[in-house]
């Protein structure tokens, strides 16, 4: 069996084992590859940075625990940036786990900002069912749409942050942390496009390509994409976290995958050529 035949029939478990080895080596011995901030993240940062103190930023935490690893670094850096700029933050979700995800974000960030007070500087409205219809309700009567209570079941009318906030159009910016439906398109349909509310969206890598058209059409301010976007936001904001430290591993892993794809294709085409040369034919590509 030639090396090319071996490549073509390589047990995928060897690939997994090699990838795990690469991860371990680079996590334990990072080489410090250069990281630059892209246009998208820079736009997101500058948008938040330019908001006047006291403005309300709406965090749509429409994701679940399974997506936290990919999205949380960016969400945490943005939330810290908001608190640093003295912006007020309100979180809510159309996903059942979203309220807990917002609470998780706040629990990680608020110890660094002990002067921030629940109900004054930030609020977690939690999950509400209804998806896009609920989002529509937020544009009509926000307090009624959330049933008058927050994530913990306490009445929101007692919180100063709710003063003057009658509709979601009253917020200065929406930061959507989205992974599916309801997500970015639903927000665009009923809130950001008809009411001209600016939105930055934090997305997993898999959703970026299909969301780019909304950026081109001007319906989105910016996309902060995946762990890479999180690392860039950590870099530009100065709030270092897990994303930046993982970028070496991510880069090496991507390189490993590209090498395996090239080797696999070399094996495939070589064997195809060999079969064709020996009269054995070959499958069409």
């Amino acid at each position, binding site marked *: 069996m030639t090396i090319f035949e071996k490549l073509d029939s390589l047990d995928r478990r060897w690939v997994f084992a090699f990838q795990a080895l690469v991860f371990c080596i680079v996590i334990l011995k990072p080489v410090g590859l250069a990281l630059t901030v892209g246009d998208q993240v820079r736009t997101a940062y500058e948008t938040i940075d330019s908001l006047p103190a006291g403005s309300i930023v709406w965090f749509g935490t429409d994701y679940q625990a399974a997506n936290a690893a990919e999205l949380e670094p960016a969400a945490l850096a943005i939330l810290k940036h908001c608190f640093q700029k003295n912006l007020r933050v309100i979180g809510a979700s159309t996903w*059942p786990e979203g309220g807990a995800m917002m609470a998780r974000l706040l629990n990680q960030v608020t110890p660094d900002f002990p002067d921030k007070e629940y109900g004054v500087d930030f609020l977690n409205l939690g999950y509400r069912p209804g998806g896009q219809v609920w989002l529509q309700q937020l544009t009509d009567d926000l307090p009624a749409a959330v049933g008058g209570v927050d994530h913990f079941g306490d009445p929101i009318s007692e919180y100063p942050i709710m003063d003057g906030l009658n509709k979601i159009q009253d917020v200065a910016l929406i930061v959507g942390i989205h992974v599916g439906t309801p997500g970015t398109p639903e927000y665009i349909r009923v809130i950001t496009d008809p009411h001209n509310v600016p939105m930055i969206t934090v997305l997993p*890598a898999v959703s970026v390509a299909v969301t780019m058209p909304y950026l081109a059409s001007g319906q989105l301010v910016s996309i902060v994409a995946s762990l890479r976007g999180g690392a860039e936001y950590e870099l530009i904001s100065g709030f270092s976290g897990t994303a930046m430290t993982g970028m070496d591993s991510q880069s090496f892993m991507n390189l490993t995958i590209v090498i395996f794809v090239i080797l696999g294709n070399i094996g495939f085409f070589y064997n195809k050529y060999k079969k064709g040369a020996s009269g054995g034919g070959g499958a069409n590509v």
Partner: protein
Amino acid sequence: MSNDIWVWIGAFLTLGTYSILFKDNPVYRVLEALFVAILAGHSVVINWYNFQKPTLTGRLGEGKEWTLIIPLFLAALMYFRYSRKYAWLARYPMAFLMGIGAAYVLTKNLKPMFLAQARATMLPLWVPGNIGATINNWIVVIGVASVLTYFFFTIRKQGPVNAFSRVGRIYLMIAFGALFADTVLGRVSVTLVRFQFLLQDWLGLGM
């Protein structure tokens, strides 16, 4: 190495889940069922405490918003799906939901999802002094037109139409490649965070 029991549980769950990469095994099966069960149970509890209970006790109970009985009644009809004899009753709330959904999508989608997107593809094919933008616009316009041609099935594609349709096919292949690469990138990110957890939080290495 961590002294936190929850970190150990997390490490066990992570390694148990990744064990499927070696071969199918009972530990993975148990963890798969555990994940589904936790998600389902969590959704039920959160739905009850975040919306259903406050609505029933607050708006319907104390607020006396009697009109809420209508959606409550329709929701109750859904449970007739479990009865063979009365399953037809569940069609009414379903029809209601489909009607609302269709009307809602039709009225809400036109501008943001169609007109705005169509307008975003109507780009100038010559941007004075900016060759990069000019090339970008050509790529977008040819891409949209050729992919639409690819999905045009009313006439037999021959000659230039067929050639243009093949350009659309190439665009689609590139888009699928980008989507697949994005998916791989996302999975790598998730795996990376898990490895950071195992090596650093659990084993205490490379801190």
